[in-house]
């Protein structure tokens, strides 16, 4: 008889470890295992794998809660939130400027406010309604929201932040999270996202969350 293939061996192993029974064809396959060392060893290995992944094996695993807590702390340090902004969608062009506001600005690492140029010119140009928020101390870090196009443009200057990467997430009610794709060009990270769902959301800017 030819060697059994991996699918057949896995099937036999899972039946054996689940304490189920073999049909006639499987009994024949087992016959091969009596004399073929190679297939027999594979069968034993896959049986052990099935046992190890059974819930009954749980008591033999010992969770290290102390280790887990330490790792959680480390992750928190890595994932530093630099700023959080509320975007409340009211559907009116005039309302947009007021509806974008930073949460807990005083304690945030990045502090955003309306750019001086936009404040001077007003928010409405031709058919476009555009809101531009700049970081108070760094005009190279800004957020632009083009309401007519339903598009967000974000640029972050990493020079001030002293981190290798930044991630921007849009958090919607109900748990949906969309990450804004950013590209790195020197010390600048820039990206945009269009077709944003027509719901209010929070924008979260984090440093280094993808570090592994």
């Amino acid at each position: 008889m030819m060697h059994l293939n991996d699918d057949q061996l896995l099937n036999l192993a899972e039946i054996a470890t689940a304490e189920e029974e073999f049909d006639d064809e499987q009994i024949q396959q087992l016959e091969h295992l009596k004399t073929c060392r190679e297939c027999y060893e594979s069968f034993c290995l896959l049986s052990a794998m099935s046992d190890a992944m059974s819930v009954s094996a749980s008591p033999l695993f010992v969770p290290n809660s102390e280790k887990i807590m330490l790792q959680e702390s480390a992750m928190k340090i890595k994932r530093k939130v630099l700023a959080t902004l509320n975007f409340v969608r009211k559907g009116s062009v005039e309302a947009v400027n007021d509806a974008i506001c930073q949460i807990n600005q005083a304690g945030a690492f990045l502090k955003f406010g309306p750019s001086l140029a936009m404040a001077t010119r007003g928010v409405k140009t031709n058919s476009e309604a555009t809101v531009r928020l700049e970081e108070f101390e760094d005009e190279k870090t800004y957020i632009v929201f083009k309401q007519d196009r339903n598009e967000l443009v974000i640029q972050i200057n990493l020079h001030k932040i002293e981190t290798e990467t930044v991630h921007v997430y849009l958090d919607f009610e109900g748990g949906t999270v969309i990450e804004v794709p950013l590209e790195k060009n020197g010390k600048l990270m820039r990206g945009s996202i269009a077709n944003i769902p027509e719901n209010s959301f929070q924008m979260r800017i984090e440093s280094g969350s993808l570090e592994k």
Partner: protein
Amino acid sequence: MSYSQKEHIEMLQQRKKSDVQRAAEVINSAYSSCVDGSESAFPKMIEELDKMYGGMVRRHLSIAGCNNDENQHTAMQEARIAVWELIKKSRDENMKISSFASYCKGIYYHKVGDVIRVASTVRSRFGENMPSIDETVPSENGTVGDFIAHPIDNGNQPDVTIANVEKRKLYDGIFKLYCQILTELDSEPPRKLALYYARILPHVLYVSFNVEAIPDNKVASPKWAIKRMGNKTIGMLGIESEKEMQQYISSQLIWCDGFWKRLDEMVNTSVGQDFMKNVIFTNEYDEKQIGHMTDYMHKIVAKEWLQQVKKDSKTLEDIVEYCKEMDKISGMVKGGESR
């Protein structure tokens, strides 16, 4: 004495579907008689049920590292009582359960699960090195002996303790390698995430926190995976799953570069094109698809796992012996019925 390869397989070949079907017919017929009022059929029915599911009870106790006569007896006896209660209920309600023999598998399975949980609790209090039963335990307002008066552990049998330490190392190594292979394989991220959320994470939650995320007789649950994933994007699930794997399984586990690169690729979705990382997983894949992806990835990971373990001759030898021993334990004729 260890079985030979031939003896090991011959023992497994005794587990024929056709034989079990015949036994099931005997059990179902005896059950029917019992419900109709004849109690004389009950001992025969229990004997057949014990034969049919005794191996499963012993195997699970052994996997959990708490297989001994006491625990076997407790699990089997509790199962028998539950079967009797079920017969009484059937009589009261004048309703017969179809496929009664198969139904009883769940009873035996859950009863052995209860015994394992108690044994696990005892072990978590005292560790593998059990103190003397006469030692006072202030928190229990009595002695160790009082605390374990009923069940249910291996006691302080040194041979079992050593076996459990070895078994723990074995399972730990097997599981970590399985997860490592999943993270390293060059496969589509949704498939990898399906296996992680439907199979690995429920297992980890049970192992680490005793959270029964999915029914304990199932190895995977796409339904639970959908609930867990919610409306999160594939990108967010990638980040979260990696964090969880590092926390709960091994700090060395990271999704491979190919995983993250694929998340930055544009893909066609049900609502147009988007980066894969922005796609909401559960909007694109339903329960059935997640089930298929989970099974597919499990097979892929298992095959790769097999190839890697085969290269380690020492581990291979240990596992072959382990496997013989486990099947020998489950294939024993005796088990819990003598007390």
